[in-house]
């Protein structure tokens, strides 16, 4: 059984990052087409990620792709282009029941076109809005494809005008709510990433806190964070 302790998020338009990522042995490798890619590079990042998945030595990790939301106008094309190279899952930003329902239809169609069995590609909704947080249980039940969810505190902070801190007191409620909802649904829960990639001690504390709140794993923005995450989440 694959472990689900860590997800390393790598911008999808940087060949160097795509090539270096597997050496950190993250449980999930998130190739990012959304936040990590500027608007004008969305098309070329999509192609780069598609080609990288077929080419790179990603055997020791579960490759997932964070696509753009459908409302951004890029999401549908992301699904269409990436589905044939069969990532383990798509990560869906601004997860909402409505969007996930639409994606379910698009993805089923794309799988058919690519000759894949229906449901072979999973979905990992990102909870980064207040609405999604309060819809957690229905959100997680939208599709049988959903086995994990990802709590992104930065999105929430933006929406609410929260100023983030390393200690994370300001997101205590959201974290707790998210982690518990995932537990109830029997799903993997990934905590928001720790932003200071040079502060290993802070990261370790943050991992410990998340684990105690009920999270089963954590996102990382730098390969150097993976070992610490694996130390805490076992």
């Amino acid at each position, binding site marked *: 059984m694959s472990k689900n302790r860590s997800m390393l998020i790598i911008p999808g338009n940087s060949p160097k990052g795509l090539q270096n990522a597997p050496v950190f042995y993250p449980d999930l490798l998130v190739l990012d087409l959304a936040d990590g890619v500027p608007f004008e590079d969305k098309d070329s990042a999509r192609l780069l990620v598609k080609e990288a998945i077929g080419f790179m030595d990603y055997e020791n990790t579960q490759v997932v792709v964070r696509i753009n939301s459908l409302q951004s106008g890029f999401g549908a094309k992301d699904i269409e282009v990436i589905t044939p190279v069969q990532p383990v899952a798509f990560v869906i930003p601004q997860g909402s029941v409505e969007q996930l329902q639409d994606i379910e239809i698009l993805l089923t169609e794309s799988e058919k076109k690519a000759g894949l069995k229906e449901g072979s590609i999973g979905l990992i909704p990102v909870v980064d809005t207040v609405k999604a947080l309060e819809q957690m249980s229905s959100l997680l039940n939208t599709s049988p494809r959903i086995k994990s969810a990802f709590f992104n505190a930065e999105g929430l902070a933006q929406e609410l005008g929260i100023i983030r801190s390393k200690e994370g007191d300001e997101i205590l409620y959201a974290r707790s709510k998210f982690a518990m909802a995932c537990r109830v649904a029997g799903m993997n829960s990934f905590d928001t990433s720790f932003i200071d990639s040079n502060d290993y001690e802070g990261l370790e504390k943050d991992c410990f806190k998340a684990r105690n709140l009920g999270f089963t794993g954590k996102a990382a923005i730098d*390969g*150097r964070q993976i070992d610490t995450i694996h130390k805490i989440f076992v």
Partner: protein
Amino acid sequence: MKNSVGREIPEYIEGYGQVKPFGGALANYGERTKTSVKLRSVKPGDNKLVETIDEVLDKVGIRDGMTVSFHHHLRNGDYVINLVMEAIAKRGIKDITVAATGIFKIHEPLVDYIKSGVITGISVNYIAPGPVATAISKGLLKKPAVLMSHGGRPRAIESGDLHIDVAFIAAPTADFYGNMNGVHGKAACGTLAYAVSDAQYADHVVAVTDNLVPYPACPIEISQDYVDYVVKVESIGDPNGIVSGTLTVTKDPVGLRIAKLAAQVIEATGYIKEGMSFQTGAGGTSLAVAAEVRRFMKEKNVVGSFAAGGITGYMVDMLNDGLFRSLFDVQCFDLKAIASMRDNPKHQKMSGSLYGNPHNRGAVVNNLDVMILGATEIDTDFNVNVVTGSDGIIIGASGGHNDTAAGSKLAIVVTNLTKGRLPVVKDQVTTVTTPGETIDVLVTERGIAVNPARQDLIDKLKDTDLPIVPIEVLKNIAERLTGKPEPIKFTDQVVAVVEYRDGTVIDAVRKPL
């Protein structure tokens, strides 16, 4: 003929002579005779101080065909090689062999002297990628260059294989009677270790200084009894090119990953222990290994006996933090290292011969437990190339590579598996610098390979969760990413002879097509 690492070498190389083929790292020990030294004794009242380099050239009787030597402690800030060679060239002298311990970009003027036949031979143990290295690769030098190691050069000098007519020793500080040190003066460089054999064995020894101080120039490193003449020039070097800025541990996540794996190998094989000795290079990944080793040493509360080699501020910090009892320093890389060597008796300098000469009564490398090395290429027999790029152009020389690999108990090569598009692990390296029998472990970001000859290490590592794989697997991963490189085509012209530390020929560099 083929030598014992399977390289095809001519039996006789024009401009070099009869070839003694490499026959194994330990094939060449035993009874040795040092060469005799010719000198002119100095009587009371004799004056050693000379006004100009030109005048020195008269005094030493410079003439066609001579060998002149230099050290590279001033690195890319050195003015002395260029100053002396300019003066020699002006006299219309030809056919000079430059025996320099190191050549850098700043020595570009040598290219013109190579073209005009002033310089027809070069012997060097460190060469930075750049104009002179490229000129050698193009075959512009009349005789093949001889690439040695830091220990091989003093061996060659002491045995008489490399005879030096005049040694020009850049001296950051000197007195009128030839005592020198490298720790004072505006061109301070720390130790003068690489010049010690030159001073002891050359027919004529000249101190070239820009900081003439009242007698005696303490703390003396090279003493007056070896020195014929002292000449003062305006400047021997540019301090900015001599010492590096702050050399720091890499922040590159992949470099750190490699460093961490390397330290875990050291720990798992039992070398993090009381009295351990350790050497690493000054590169970012090498220093990162030091940082990880430091962490293990602190955790286990062990104190090492010594760290050696070119010394950086980072190693000085480890000394001062009590992680090592002493340092052996052959080259100071930064101001912190210079100050420490000057002020701290635990920070010991060592000559090139003491550092790595295989034919003295035991070099410091023999006492090394763990050595961290780099590689431009490494083959599936663990042979390492640091001499030529994958296109066959010269980009370096052994330096201490094959000395420390041979001496240390655990020689670890740390490198990225691929550098950009270039695979580092290959079926065959372009040039062999260090024989695979002296390399124990290869650590890359995509896996670790242990030399099958080291069954003891394999046994110790097999129950760890370290990613240990056969080296062929690493080669295949590299080639899957980069593609299989097309072989580079070479002409038959030998442009450089790669001598192993014992003076046998381990490879020949041919001119690329």
